[in-house]
Each structure stands twice: as C-alpha cells, then as structure tokens.
C-alpha cells in the first residue's frame, strides 16, 4: 500500500486489506493520484489512486477471463521493499491460489504454471488445493508459502524459472515421504519467512511423530530440520575437537618412541676410522594399537632405527603410519 505522507512523498506499508462489508474482497493498491473508484462502495478512498489488482483492465469488473481470474476473495500477504511486487492469494472460483502481482504482468496465478486457467495436478501444477504466500524476496523473484497438493499443505518456493516447487518433496517425484529420500515432512509444511535474496526459507513442518518442527531450506533443495541440523553440527564440531585432542595425545606418545642399542664394546671410533663400520645399529619394526571406548581407536605401524655412538650416546629416528 502506498500512502501519502505529510510532504507528499509516497510511503510504503506492508499490509492486508480486508473489507468485511463486501462479499468479495478485491485486493488493491494505492497509487498517487486523484481518481476515485466507482462501483465499489465501502472501499476506503483518499486522494490517491486505488488500483484493484484483480481488475486488470480497470473497468471495474472482474470478469473471470485469463487476465482477471481472481473472481473471489483476494488477499495480500507480502510486498517487496520498493512496492513493485506483491504476493498474496486469490480465489479463482475453485480454490485460493497464490499469486504474484506486478504492474507489467498483473496478478499471476503461481499454481497455474502454463497459464491455461486450469490446475491440472501434473508435476508442474501439483498445487490443486488452496495455496498461500508468506514471503517475497526483495526483487520479487522468489515467493514462499504453502500449497495443498490434494493430500496436505506443502511449503513451496516459487520463481519464474522453476515454478512452484514443493520443497517437502526432495526428490521431486510427486510423493512426499518416499522411503530413502529423506522426506520427513509428510503431513504438513509451510514457509514462514525468506531471506531478502530468496536463497533461504524458514518455516515449520510436521514430522512422522506429528510434532511441528522448524525447518530451513537453502540452495541444496533439501528441507532441513533446523533443530536436528544444529544438533548435528554441534556434535560434528565436538567430535572434531575430540579427534584433534586424540591426535595431540598420540603425538605426545609417539615422541617417546625409542629403541635400545647395545653399546659398542671394542669400538675405538676416533683412533681407527675403519672401525666406523662397527657402530652397533638396531632396527625395530612395530605394530601398535590403542583402544578407548570413548575415543578414536588408533593403529600405528612404525620402523625405528638407532645407532650407538661413543660416550654412551644413542641416536635414532623413526617413521610411523
């Protein structure tokens, strides 16, 4: 809705307009101007122009043609920040249909993908029952809401390319709850809000235990249980910390690796260079395993070599896998 401010500049409001005094509730917007509508008593008027968006040709009659399909009640639910796009629902005589309105395309029935005026229940026109909108992206490209597929209400995201996508139907086979598909919101789901760029939708859905659970939906096309996802991430991060701790403990043990070499008995290393070949050397191969019921089990294979030097020194090195 656009209302005139004190200094004459338009001001945007997101609102629903409901006129309870009439049987049919057309959705309208106000534009700056002075023309009053005729033939629609009890509709609030001001010095702005009120446009009934269901009345595409502006003749005061909603005639049920393709361009004026919203013959029953219609409602607005969301509006883009600049007022260019409106999302709402309207009755086409059969059911409420989610729509997007803009000045160029008028009121577009989101459930009627091919625009033939019939929601035929095909894969692209699955929303045969009522459909509702809850959010619209800043540029109007994305709309989120819920729609009934004949079985239950399903959260959807709409865009011009993909149409109305049932986001509870992860594999897109038209069945929510396909075994192995990860489709958990089998009985009800609805969107609540959307990020400004339309990339993330949040809402709530019933799981198989009939409990309402918050969900989020991103670019991956999977409706994620918000609580379980957060739990999974926390558990994973905690496990990472434990794994790093385990490795740190392991390196603390590995650094103690050592083998003994019997000292040179007859070595006169410095007096006779030929005796250098007599430096006692030892090589050890070892396999070890550590086991802990609350931590990672670690297996290590290692090879260690050491040489005994004069002055009771032993020098060695090791490699472990």
């Amino acid at each position: 809705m656009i209302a005139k401010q004190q200094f004459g500049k338009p001001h945007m409001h997101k609102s629903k307009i409901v006129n309870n005094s009439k049987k049919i509730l057309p959705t309208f917007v106000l534009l700056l101007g002075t023309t009053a509508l005729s033939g629609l008593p009890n509709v609030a008027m001001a010095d702005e122009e009120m446009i009934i968006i269901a009345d595409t040709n502006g003749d005061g009659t909603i005639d049920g043609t393709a361009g004026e399909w919203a013959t029953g009640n219609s409602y607005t639910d969301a509006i883009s920040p600049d007022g260019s796009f409106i999302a709402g629902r309207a009755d086409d005589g059969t059911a409420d249909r989610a729509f997007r309105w803009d000045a160029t395309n008028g009121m577009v029935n989101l459930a009627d993908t091919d625009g033939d005026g019939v929601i035929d229940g095909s894969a692209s026109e699955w929303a045969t029952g009522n459909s509702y909108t809850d959010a619209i992206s800043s540029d109007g490209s994305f709309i989120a809401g819920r729609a009934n597929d004949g079985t239950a209400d399903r959260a959807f995201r709409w865009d011009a390319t993909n149409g109305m996508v049932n986001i509870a139907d992860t594999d897109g086979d038209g069945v929510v709850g396909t075994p192995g598909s990860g489709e958990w919101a089998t009985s009800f789901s609805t969107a609540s809000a959307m990020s400004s760029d339309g990339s993330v939708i949040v809402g709530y859905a019933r799981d198989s235990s009939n409990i309402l659970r918050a969900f989020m939906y991103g670019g991956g096309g999977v409706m994620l249980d918000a609580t379980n996802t957060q739990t999974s991430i926390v558990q994973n991060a905690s496990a990472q910390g434990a794994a790093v701790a385990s490795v740190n403990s392991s390196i603390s043990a590995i650094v103690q690796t050592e083998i003994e070499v019997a000292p040179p008995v007859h070595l006169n290393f410095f007096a006779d260079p030929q005796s250098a070949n007599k430096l006692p050397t030892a090589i050890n191969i070892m396999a070890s395993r550590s086991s802990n019921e609350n931590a990672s089990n670690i297996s290590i294979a290692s090879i260690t070599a050491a040489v005994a030097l004069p002055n009771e020194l032993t020098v060695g090195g090791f490699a472990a896998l």
Partner: protein
Amino acid sequence: MKAFGGFVRGASLGNTSLTWRASFATSGGNITIARDSSLTGTEAASGNSNLTSQAASFEIGNNILLSGREVSPYLRLTRAITTRDAYTEQANSFPIAYSEHIQAATTATVGVKMRSALSSSVALRYGLGLDFDLSRNDASIEGTSQIPGMTSISVAAPAVQNNARLLVTSGLTRFFDNGSSMNFDLGLQQDTYSSSTTVIGSVGYTIQF
C-alpha cells in the same frame, strides 16, 4: 597420517648414572572430515583439511641397580601442538566454513621404569608414571555458516576430565641368539577427556648388527 621423529639418548650424564633423552616428532596429512545425516532432516557434508602435529620431549632419569633389577626413575617434559587447518565443507544447502583449530598441551611426567631378567633370554619390563598437565589450550571449534540463527558457530572443545593421568606399562623382551629380539608390550593410561582408560598394545621385532 604419517609421523616422523628422532631421539638422542645419553646413558651416562657426566659419567654418572644420570641419563637423559631429547626427542621430537612431527606428523601431518590431509584428512577428510565428514558430517553424516543420521539425524532426521539433516544433510551430509564433508570437507578436506590438513592436520599437523609437533611434539618435543626431554627426559632426565637415573639408572639404579637394585636387587638385580634395573630401576630408572625419571622426569619428563613434553610439549605437543596439533593444528587442524581452516576448511570449508562441501554441502548442498548450508556448508560450514571452519576456522583453524589448535590444541596444545604441556605435560610433565614422573615415573619409574624397571627391568629384570626372567631368564638368560627373557627380560621383563614394567613401569609406572603419572602425567600432569602444566598447561593445556583447548580452543573452541569456530566457524561460520548461512544457517539462520547459526551464522557464527562456537563449540567448546572436549572438557578435560583428568588433569593428572596414571600410566602403567608392562612388557616382555625375548632375545635370540642371532642378536635379534621380539618385544610384547601392554599399557594402560587414563584418558584426558573421559573417565575411560586407553589400552595400548604393541608387538615389535628388533635386529641389531
């Protein structure tokens, strides 16, 4: 994961019975960290990162012959640092970018190692030690995501359960006439982060020439 290291042992410090040892070790490698989808309504994700560790240790001890046994009390300091590099998960919907994570610990160990001959070809080894944490840096696991309400992630590292940990070791060495030997070792150590005990077993073969 591969580990490398080295050590220097001095069996007689200043012509006394004092011994010393300095050692170091390093390990590193590429790791894959996976997050499963076992919880309902979650997605699997995974990422690759590098995990590197360094440790250094210095030990001083004293070899004493006591009733036919070699008894070696010792004091050891060990410093270990493990770093998991920053990485970003591959996930369909909400990948998480984890920051670098570092854990470091400095421990002191006091203990005693003993060795006695069971026969002319078999030696029995056993030891008892106690690790003390002198310092321990267990930073939180940090990250960011686009998950609503979870754009900044900070999960505490495992809480230390035992600042002092008992270590018990035992082993047998069988010497052969050709100068080689086999060793069998079993150790028990209290865990740092849980009340459980880590069991360490190993078998090795040594040849000297």
